[in-house]
């Protein structure tokens, strides 16, 4: 299920510094290698800057700006 795919990938990224470093270098490559639906790939690529760089969410940032 796509929700589960997102949860599992985020969990791995948050728990593992090595994965975060890989995402920082090549987000599309790392995310593309995982067995994910195209829609989930697109979403995770949008989340990648936050997962990889520990970039904080702007206080006013909303999903419709993502």
């Amino acid at each position, binding site marked *: 299920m*796509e*929700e589960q795919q*997102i*949860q599992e990938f*985020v*969990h791995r990224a*948050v*728990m593992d510094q090595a994965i975060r470093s890989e995402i920082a270098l090549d987000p599309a490559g790392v995310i593309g290698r995982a067995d994910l639906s195209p*829609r*989930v790939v*697109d*979403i*995770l690529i*949008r*989340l990648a800057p*936050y*997962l990889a760089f520990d970039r*904080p*969410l702007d*206080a006013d*940032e*909303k*999903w*419709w700006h*993502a």
Partner: protein
Amino acid sequence: MAVVADLEIARRALCERLFGHLDGLHPALREDVAEALSMEGKLLHRPASSLDGRWALLPFYLARDLRAPIEPDPACDAALAMECVVCATDLLDDVMDDDRTPLVERFGAARVLNTALALVSLAQRMLLALLDLDCPAVLSTRLLDAVQRAILLASVGQQRDLLAERRPACDLNREECIEIAAAKAGSLLSLACQMGALCAGLETTRVDQCAELGRLLGIAAQLDNDAHDLYHLLRPATQAGRGQKSDLARAKKTLPVVLAAHTLRATHALDAACIDFRHVTTRVDKERETYANALKEGIFATWGIALLYRERAREHLDLLMGARPASPALCRVLGLETALAKIED
């Protein structure tokens, strides 16, 4: 700029019609109701931003997109009824959550509750008044039925949310959190879409499709709100929301909290009964870091799932509209603008 101008024209027409309805209220009630409808995000808010009155604009533009031309007066009244229903539920939420909003501070909880009651009644009066416009009685009946169902469903969502406050976070799961989000925000956005479809004169199957669009968007919006609420708590106190309690402080079991709790139990072997996020910012050192990382994971996973529901809604809208794309104004109101539309704007 064309979209903004289009929205402003529609908003003015809706405001003008709303003032007509407010004139029919007793003076003792009129000021409070008008004040509630003038709060930020509401139709009468000044100075107006492009999405003030969004809840009224949505059914109006959806009706227009689904079947042009539409009868403007019934569509406007249905749109205004939607605005009143949401304004009422927002007020009730504020009191239930003990949020010290500007209106609650000025009027007190009792007047706010009374205003909410008046707004629900006003919404129903607006829909009944469609009969005076020579609209088919079935339209008025179906709109009223949709409003009643949605309010009951939203109440169920709110009730489940309140009851969940007493349960350990690990007692809930992702599916239950999404069900609650669907009942809360999903029911209201679903109603807005249904009302637009009914005013466009669509048959039942298509109305149900519109309802599903609203449900998906509502889930996305609720999850997004839940994720951002938590993030505000993790920021420095000076940047936290003023006068509002966060979901954590209220022991709300939103999706990010539930996901974080499951992570803490599974990854750090914490006892489910001992997991408590309410004082995360005052915990020390390693424990704070453990809780903060779990919350961060919950926040990002929830945001990702919110984006997922938003994309499902976008695909659903494309199916609904068929060969004719949704107007830029409708996409703006739904929050489903494409990048190209934004550039042109």
